[in-house]
């Protein structure tokens, strides 16, 4: 890894809509992408609800910001970790989540998955590797 690049992980632990944490964190993530750091995202606890598929906000009048997660690949953010135990506790599987992908510039723009299902213990290891962890 080159000089000056740090490993940043944004940990998303809160449900979207009820509070503003998820939206604010997403904005910070998109801004941070401008600084060419090694950025990853983790979704655990109620944070897994941020990336559920088929969010429809017409009835509640909230701004539906879930589509913006699909742009993360364009921002070269392609390491997105989802904690297995958090899904299970909430009756969810990866099938309930959006399919977040990126296009690999070095492989003729092939579309590849950005999402990795990890156990709580594996997430602990990933957190341990980071230079900076920002939790919200």
């Amino acid at each position: 890894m080159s000089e000056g690049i740090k490993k940043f992980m944004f940990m998303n632990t809160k449900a979207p809509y009820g509070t503003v944490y998820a939206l604010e964190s997403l904005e910070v993530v998109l801004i941070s992408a401008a600084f060419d750091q090694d950025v990853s995202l983790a979704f655990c606890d109620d944070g897994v609800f941020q990336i559920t598929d088929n969010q429809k906000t017409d009835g509640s009048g909230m701004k539906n910001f879930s589509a913006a997660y699909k742009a993360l690949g364009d921002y070269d953010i392609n390491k997105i970790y989802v904690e297995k135990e958090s899904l299970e506790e909430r009756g969810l599987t990866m099938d309930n989540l959006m399919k977040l992908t990126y296009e690999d510039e070095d492989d003729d723009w092939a579309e590849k998955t950005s999402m990795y299902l990890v156990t709580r213990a594996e997430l602990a290891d990933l957190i341990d590797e980071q230079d900076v962890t920002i939790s919200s």
Partner: protein
Amino acid sequence: MATISVEGKDLEVDEEGYLVNLDEWFPAVASAMAVIDEVEMEDDHWDIINFLREYYEEYQIAPAVRVLTKAVAKKLGKEKGNSKYLYQLFPYGPGKQACKFAGLPKPTGCV
């Protein structure tokens, strides 16, 4: 609140000239803003504006310049997907100025 007058309609804009109600946009809004900024609108400008509107429609965010550049390179070719070309079209910045013309909010992370 400031307004911009387009074809007899007074549309609200913020202190930096961005549309307040994004769904009030129609192509003449871009043309009117271009006149104010002294930009002569040609097909190349519209290509970028249309691209930005499609991007916003799909992702609900205005893309960062870096993202815009890469995406334009992929869609319209490398000779257009570079910041020199984009800055020639939009001298105040492809992020800030083109997004304004396109009726999008200011890109996240743009100061």
